[in-house]
């Protein structure tokens, strides 16, 4: 690819790309993000390519394109295929469907009903992607392009208007004007803390040292959050462009992408994007003839959640263990190698090109007083439409869970939404009407965090949730400061005892005491926010803690030491299904012999409970009371007649 040396050359190049693209030409877009790849998307792509070869469609006359794209977010229904220009959306596509799709939809323009989305309430089949309720109720400014472009192609990015923001910033705005624009937009950091981005840029810009760095924090460590993964895999150029504009505004000539190594596809796509950007002249010396130099390097994380904390990230970049540094001094003053450094989250950087192109009003016209713009959430857990959703700030939590998320599967009852990962809190049903924004979430004891939103139902034990997060943090704490290392260790011990039926009076108060010290005296935000899940679950679900402590009962039937599985001899029909499926071979019985579970061998995996046919519903979970002794052998024989049974 020839280097582009000026805005005029870029426009010429862009026009050239667009002229070669016929908007009416069919294009089969297949999501090849990590999620859909895990569901077999690569084989679907191969099947399409083979089908096209078979029908000789891609030879002399290019009749149809196959595009491997980034993640469009409807992960529950992957692999996802969208046929353009009609925007026909097919879900859960298998390689075997390729032939029919090509001949029916691409060539004959007919829709295949069985692959369409069916509205669960109306039964209506929906053809166009944008009309599917999951998508309709979102505002997809940042991830909307994912299904339209091949992330490995800079030409695709240019075809959708990419790099026009960089042209505008470098050519028509001073660095100070760019900073002012970001300030005016009230954009707040999307990594979790929500610090005003423009302010941070200004601090860094105003630091006297002329050597400055800009960094993309792509260490997305919150378990359950994968927004940044989708942006980096699906549209890495948008983040690159934002970073370059930021570097220009701040006066930095060297940037870093710090990507967690658990995201190999993101590392690959970002590295390739940087290479292509360098070849085209969007990175390197004298970018687009503006006189501005900027280079970016990719640096992989090595498996440490704490490195998502900005000062730990800096330590890791410097080749050291990810132990946080005290602040002040803040990275904007003394960061990487002691130089002023601006670190922002992936999603924050991705907002920048939109801001430059559309002005501050683009963000300020959306959202609430304190939180402007859109936010991408990973809506996961016990919800029908798991995936990535981009919604305006200020939407209610209930709307996200029910309108976009489609509610709770299996007819189960909603219990809580956990936001903010291990630093966040659980929000119960009574607060479903809150507007999702930085400040409102804080008021109910949670935080926005990076965007992880885990939906929990009646089968989730809140004591177990608190224990889960503390267990996670025990391993992820860097261990340097004692309030975090020791405090979390002690809290985990107490929660483990509670979950095993060894809880004692006073445990809740002790947890609260430990929480206070850990929160107030820790060196960094990992320790500082570690008590949040514990405190919020105690606040809203104290009854569950008390049931565990006083009654040795787990109301949600999760804590293994407190539950037992029992086959009701009155309901068992000796169908042998649970017997065969039991991974611990703990069920005894026969074709005509009522099954019984050997409590010594039972590992409480719950398989029997799940596989027992609903018409029998013979397996029951017990907690807080003793298991009935097994009925005598003689009583277990079933004598079958043509109808009914006799014991």
């Amino acid at each position, binding site marked *: 690819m020839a280097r582009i040396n000026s805005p005029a050359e870029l426009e010429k190049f862009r026009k050239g790309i667009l002229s070669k693209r016929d908007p009416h030409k069919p294009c089969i877009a297949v999501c090849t993000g990590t999620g859909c790849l895990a569901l077999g998307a690569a084989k679907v792509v191969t099947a399409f390519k083979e089908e096209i070869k078979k029908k000789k469609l891609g030879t002399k006359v290019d009749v149809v394109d196959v595009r491997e794209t980034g993640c469009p977010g409807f992960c529950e229904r992957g692999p996802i295929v969208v046929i353009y220009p009609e925007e026909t959306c097919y879900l859960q596509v298998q390689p075997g469907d390729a032939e029919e799709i090509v001949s029916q939809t691409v060539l004959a323009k007919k829709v295949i009903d069985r692959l369409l989305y069916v509205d669960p309430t109306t039964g209506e089949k929906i053809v166009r992607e944008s009309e599917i309720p999951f998508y309709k109720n979102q505002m997809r400014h940042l991830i909307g392009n994912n299904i339209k472009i091949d992330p490995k192609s800079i030409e695709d990015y240019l075809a959708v208007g990419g790099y026009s923001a960089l042209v505008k910033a470098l050519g028509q705005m001073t660095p100070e004007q760019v900073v002012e624009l970001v300030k005016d937009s009230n954009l707040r950091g999307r990594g979790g803390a929500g610090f005003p981005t423009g302010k941070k840029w200004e601090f860094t810009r105003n630091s006297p040292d002329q050597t400055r760095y800009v960094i993309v924090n792509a260490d997305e460590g919150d378990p359950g959050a994968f927004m940044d993964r989708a942006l980096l895999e699906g549209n890495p150029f948008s983040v690159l462009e934002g970073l370059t504009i930021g570097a220009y505004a701040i006066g930095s000539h060297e940037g870093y992408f710090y990507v967690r190594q658990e995201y190999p596809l993101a590392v690959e796509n970002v590295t390739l994007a940087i290479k292509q950007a360098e070849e085209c002249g969007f990175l390197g010396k004298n970018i687009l003839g503006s006189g501005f130099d900027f280079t970016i390097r990719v640096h992989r994380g090595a498996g*440490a959640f*704490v490195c998502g904390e900005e000062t730990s990230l800096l330590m890791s970049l410097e080749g050291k*263990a990810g132990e946080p540094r*005290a602040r*002040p*001094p803040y990275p904007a003053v003394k960061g990487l190698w002691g130089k002023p450094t601006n670190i922002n989250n992936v999603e924050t950087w991705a907002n920048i090109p939109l801001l430059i192109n559309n002005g501050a009003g683009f963000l300020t016209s959306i959202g609430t007083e304190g939180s402007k713009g859109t936010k991408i959430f990973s809506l996961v857990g016990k919800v029908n439409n798991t995936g990535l959703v981009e919604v305006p700030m200020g939407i209610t939590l209930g709307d996200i869970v029910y309108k976009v998320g489609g509610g709770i599967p299996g007819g189960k009852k909603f219990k809580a939404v956990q936001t903010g990962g291990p630093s966040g809190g659980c929000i119960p049903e009574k607060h479903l009407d809150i507007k999702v924004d930085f400040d409102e979430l804080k008021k109910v004891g949670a935080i926005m965090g990076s965007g992880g939103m885990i939906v929990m139902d009646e089968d989730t034990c809140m004591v177990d949730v608190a224990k889960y997060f503390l267990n996670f*943090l*025990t*391993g*992820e*704490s*860097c*261990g*340097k*400061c*004692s*309030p975090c*290392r*020791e*405090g*979390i*260790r*002690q809290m985990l*011990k107490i929660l483990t005892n509670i979950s095993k039926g060894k809880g004692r009076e006073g445990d809740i108060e002790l947890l609260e*005491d*430990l929480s*206070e*010290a850990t929160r*107030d*005296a*820790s*060196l960094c935000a990992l320790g500082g926010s570690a008590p949040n899940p514990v405190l919020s679950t105690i606040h809203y679900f104290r009854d569950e803690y008390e049931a565990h402590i006083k009654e040795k009962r787990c109301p949600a039937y999760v804590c293994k030491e407190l539950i037992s599985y029992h086959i009701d001899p009155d309901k068992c029909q000796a169908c042998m299904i649970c017997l065969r499926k039991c991974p611990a071979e703990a069920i005894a019985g026969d074709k005509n012999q009522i099954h019984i579970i050997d409590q010594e061998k039972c590992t409480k995996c719950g398989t029997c409970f799940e596989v027992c046919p609903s018409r029998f519903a013979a397996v029951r979970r017990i907690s807080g009371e003793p298991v009935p002794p097994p009925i005598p052998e003689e009583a277990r024989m079933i004598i079958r007649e043509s109808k009914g049974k006799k014991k």
Partner: protein
Amino acid sequence: MSEILLQIDGTEVKAAEGMTILKAAQSAGIYIPTLCHHEKLEPYGACRICVVEVDARGRKGLVAACLYPVESDLVVRTRSEKVDKTRKILLEQLLAHAPDAPALKDLAQQYGADKDRFAKESSFCILCGLCVRYCAEVKKKNAVGFVDRGASREINFVPEIASEECWNCKECFPLCPTSYLQAAYHLTEALAFPRAALKPASGK
């Protein structure tokens, strides 16, 4: 360097720019307890015993005195209900590791810390880092370092270096508040140093 005026426990204290609260307090004769701090070493901020309450720009909170830089008009309280409560529980957590450490016992008395509040931990190292930092910053030998993270963090001698350097040095030994260091050294010596590499006792 410009002079900064701040308030510590109601007393006006003059400090130089770049000084930490701890240094400023010490210069004014105000005592703040520490465990992981040492004059010869860079401040570390790990034990958090030196936390003090500060009012700065309308925000109140606890900060480590050994690290926080002085600011003009900073209001610092070295003792308060919150500070005392925090120090007490931090001490109790450390006492679960090393109930007999003299420095911990002293402080425990001052703050009413109960050494039996938490069940005994298996390791009596309190991870103050004095040994690691001394060997790195003063001796520049790096014979001992940290390994692992979180609740599994420990100190560990590098056998290749320790077998050459430690026999004639051992300057870090008196720094250890719990004597865990000596125990760790002797264990490493017994398990990892090849007999031939040991230097004979110098008679010191």
